[in-house]
Each structure stands twice: as structure tokens, then as C-alpha cells.
């Protein structure tokens, strides 16, 4: 049998689109339920991996606290642990997408997409407060502790600390600049969506 000719006229095109051959619903409800549970388990495993990574860091710095005699250095390691725990907490709560299926149904694409862009903008725009900043107090205390515990080699060690801190500061500024650039790019996309919404 010959294939039907291409559509002619806009209504014919829409009819042709709607009458395309389809394969049918891909899954039964039981299968959907099983896959949804599997998806939840996958999220649970991802969270578990994050907690294990955090635990490894805590064990490493905890070991240093245990074996370091100087109190200030120990306080430095402990403050770094607290800072890292705060970062892990923030990554877990801010980083994961909040797009629940219920929100997808109750919001139009513009609302849904704008909220998602805002979330990403706020995440990358505030890296100082939740990603870079929490490390700094512990880092400073640790440097003071290390300088104090090496008075005999202060000249060479001091130079090493200066270079080390300079490189670290440059990395921090680089991360901050990149994220600021990302936040501005996301803001431009949000502005475009706002302009679209305002058009009547």
C-alpha cells in the first residue's frame, strides 16, 4: 500500500501530527511504582556517598587533632572540620534540585523555570557565605598554629606559608569570580523570562 501524501493545509498538518503511529503506554502502574521506588533508593545512595565522604574528612582531620600537641593547631583543625560539615550540609540542602513533580504540575513552564534559575543563581552567587567563607576561620587559626610550632625554622617556613596562602587566596578569588560570572549569566536569563512574561 502506498504511503499517504504529505499534509496539505494547516488543519491537515495538525491532523497528520496527531494521527502519527505511537507505540503505546510504556509501563504498567506497578512498574512505574517500582521504578519510582528505585529512583528514591538511588537518591538515598547518593546522599549516603556524600555522608561517607564527609566522614572520611572528619576522620582525617580528627586524627590530626588527636596527634597534634599544639592547642591552637588543634583548634584550627577542629574549626576546619566544623566549616566542612557546614559546607556538606549546605551542598545537601541547596544543591539538590527542588523540582518535585507536584510543583511541575502546579506551575507553568515560565514559573517553574524561573524558580529553578533563581535557585541556581542564589547558589552560585553566595559561594562566599556557604562554600568559601566557612573554611577561612579554621584555615587562619591553623596557619597561626603551624607558624607557632615551627619557630626554629620560621624564616623558611614563613616564606612557605606566604606562598601557600597566596596560592590558596588566588584559588578562592578565582572560584568566587567564576561563580559571580555564572550568577550574572543566570540573572540575564531570569530577566529574559521576566520580559517574556510582561509582553502582552
Amino acid at each position, binding site marked *: 500500500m502506498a*504511503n*499517504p*501524501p*504529505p*499534509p*496539505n*493545509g*494547516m488543519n*491537515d*498538518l*495538525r491532523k*497528520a*501530527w*496527531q494521527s*502519527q503511529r*505511537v*507505540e*503505546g*503506554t*510504556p*509501563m504498567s*502502574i506497578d512498574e*512505574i*511504582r517500582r*521504578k*519510582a521506588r528505585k*529512583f528514591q533508593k538511588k537518591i538515598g545512595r547518593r546522599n549516603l556517598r556524600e555522608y561517607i565522604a564527609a566522614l572520611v574528612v572528619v576522620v582525617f582531620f580528627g586524627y590530626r587533632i588527636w596527634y597534634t600537641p599544639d592547642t591552637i593547631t588543634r583548634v584550627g583543625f577542629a574549626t576546619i572540620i566544623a566549616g566542612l560539615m557546614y559546607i556538606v550540609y549546605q551542598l545537601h540542602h541547596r544543591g539538590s534540585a527542588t*523540582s*518535585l*513533580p*507536584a510543583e*511541575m*504540575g*502546579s*506551575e*507553568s*513552564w*515560565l*514559573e*517553574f*523555570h524561573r524558580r*529553578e534559575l533563581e535557585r541556581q543563581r542564589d547558589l552560585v552567587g553566595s559561594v562566599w557565605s556557604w562554600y568559601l567563607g566557612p573554611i577561612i576561620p579554621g584555615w587562619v587559626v591553623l596557619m597561626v598554629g603551624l607558624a607557632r610550632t615551627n619557630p626554629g625554622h620560621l624564616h623558611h617556613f614563613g616564606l612557605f606559608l606566604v606562598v601557600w596562602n597566596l596560592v590558596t587566596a588566588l584559588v578562592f578569588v578565582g572560584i568566587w569570580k567564576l561563580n559571580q560570572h555564572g550568577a550574572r549569566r543566570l540573572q540575564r536569563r531570569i530577566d529574559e523570562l521576566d520580559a*517574556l*512574561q510582561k*509582553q*502582552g
Partner: protein
Amino acid sequence: MAAAESTQDELYQQAADAYGPALERLARSYEADPEIRRDLLQEIHIGLWRSMEAFDGRCSLRTWVYRVAHNIASSHVMRQRRHNSRILVALEELENMPDQPVAPDADRREAMERLAALIRQLKPLDRQVILSYLEGMDAASIGEITGLSPGNVATKIHRIKAILARRFQEEA
């Protein structure tokens, strides 16, 4: 709990029966690779089933279904773009791009494949408008799904008609 689950299942079944074929066409317009498309369609159906737990009838079932499907499919496009950095165009840009009309000897299936490929070039919002138009929706319904004003939707539909007419037929 069991009653809520049963309502969720019933609502999902109702949606899948009524809009299953449209969801398949939607997936086809968002993903060209058949394997990935199958996964996307499954993701849409799972998302739809999960969303039915919160369906409160404040909008029609059709609007709800299309919102969930488009939002999931758009997120899929965004994820894919991070890997393939494919450039997507707006309707306005597509209107100014050189035409590649469907050959007169092409059959209907080939024309529909070309149409799906054309839709896949578009940015997510314009994809939603053109797909909703092809599925037979009016400007108000398209506005509910996309969040665009009816006037804005009407302008986009005008552009869509011009593009489709130039590429798929003479006298549309």
C-alpha cells in the same frame, strides 16, 4: 493511605489513557535518539504518576499533564545541552533561517519526521507553543501551560503558521 494511592493510580491511568499518545509525540519532539527517548518517556510517566498525589483540580487534567511533561522534558534538554552544547533557536530566528521545504514526493511519515526535527531545533518555550498548537490547543490553554500571555501566544502562533506553511505546504 490506600485510598489516596488508589486515587493517584486512577488519575494517572486516566491521564495516560487520554494523553499517552500525545506524550509520546512530545518525547519525540524533545529527543531524537530512540533509546534516550524511551528513557525520557518513562521519566515523564513516572513524574506524572508521582505528581498525581498533589493534583487538586485547580487546573484541568490536560493542563496538569502537559505542564509536568514539558517541565520534565525541558529539564532533560537543559541537561543534554551541558554535554552536547547544541545551539537552540527561537521562533524569530527560525523564521529568518533559510527554508528547506519538504520535497513534493515526500510521504506523510517523512514529513512528520522533518517536523519533529524542526521542533527539536527550538528553545524549550517555543517547542511547547508549537507542540501545543499541533496538538490542537487554543491560545488560552497554551498560555496556562507555558505562562505566556494569550497575546504573546497568538504572536508566536502567527510565526509558527508562517514557518510551517513555508516548509510544509503552499496554501496553508
